[in-house]
């Protein structure tokens, strides 16, 4: 499962991963501290963390003996790119339609 790199939307489609990002938005956490918030096995938590890491939503830093998860901007940029793209896309397409319809009206 999840062999390929998930895109940003797929990454946040999972409620546990959204919750992880939300917790990390308050403060960076060790993997253990993060795992304590979830009723799931450690391997399951690690898998989610790996997905978040691969998609650029978090970075992982070794501080002393602990591994810390820290929120990272890259993944959010990805989401923003697409939403901004579609917003712009529809605005410009609908203007095309306006021009076409005006042309049609003026021909009559």
């Amino acid at each position, binding site marked *: 499962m999840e062999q*390929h790199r*998930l*895109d940003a*939307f*797929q990454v*946040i*489609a999972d409620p546990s991963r*959204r919750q992880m*990002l*939300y917790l990390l*938005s308050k403060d960076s956490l060790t993997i253990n501290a993060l795992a304590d918030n979830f009723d799931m096995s450690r391997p399951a938590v690690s898998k989610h963390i790996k997905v978040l890491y691969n998609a650029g939503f978090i970075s992982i830093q070794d501080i002393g003996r602990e591994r810390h998860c820290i929120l990272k*901007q890259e993944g*959010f*940029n990805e*989401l*923003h*790119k*697409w*939403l*901004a*793209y*579609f*917003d712009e896309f*529809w*605005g410009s*397409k*609908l203007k*095309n*339609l*306006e*021009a*076409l*319809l*005006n042309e*049609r*009206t003026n021909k009559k």
Partner: protein
Amino acid sequence: MAKIIQHQFFYPNPPEVVWEYLTKPELIAQWLMKNDFEPTIGHEFNFHASPMPDMDFDGIFYCKVLEIVPFKKLSYSWDFGPGDGSMTRSVVNWTLTEKDNGTDLLLIHRGFEGANNFLSMFNSMEKGWLELIQKLLKIINNTANGTTQA
């Protein structure tokens, strides 16, 4: 479900005319994209755009007609991805309302796998780079920014 992307335009043409431009493939192609749309519920069709490798996009929107109410309402799914079979799913809704001998056309593009709910969680954040999240919320909460948009 909360709205993600919304545009409203007024066209000085009756809904019957605007409807044609939403449902006839050759007319759709004139303002939107090449397509094999058919106004039949369940019909699967594609829109063809240019691939954008930097955005992991193969250039094809994979769609399926979900709802048709002639001259009033049209809805189709709108899935896209890098071409390896993984898809981001979304839905495009068109609503036509007759007004002043013309048509108010409302577009709502939503879904995106729960992106809206997710982003609203970040509402209260204050860290510097999270201004980005604010921008995102702005797009999401943006209403009726049709023809006045620069």
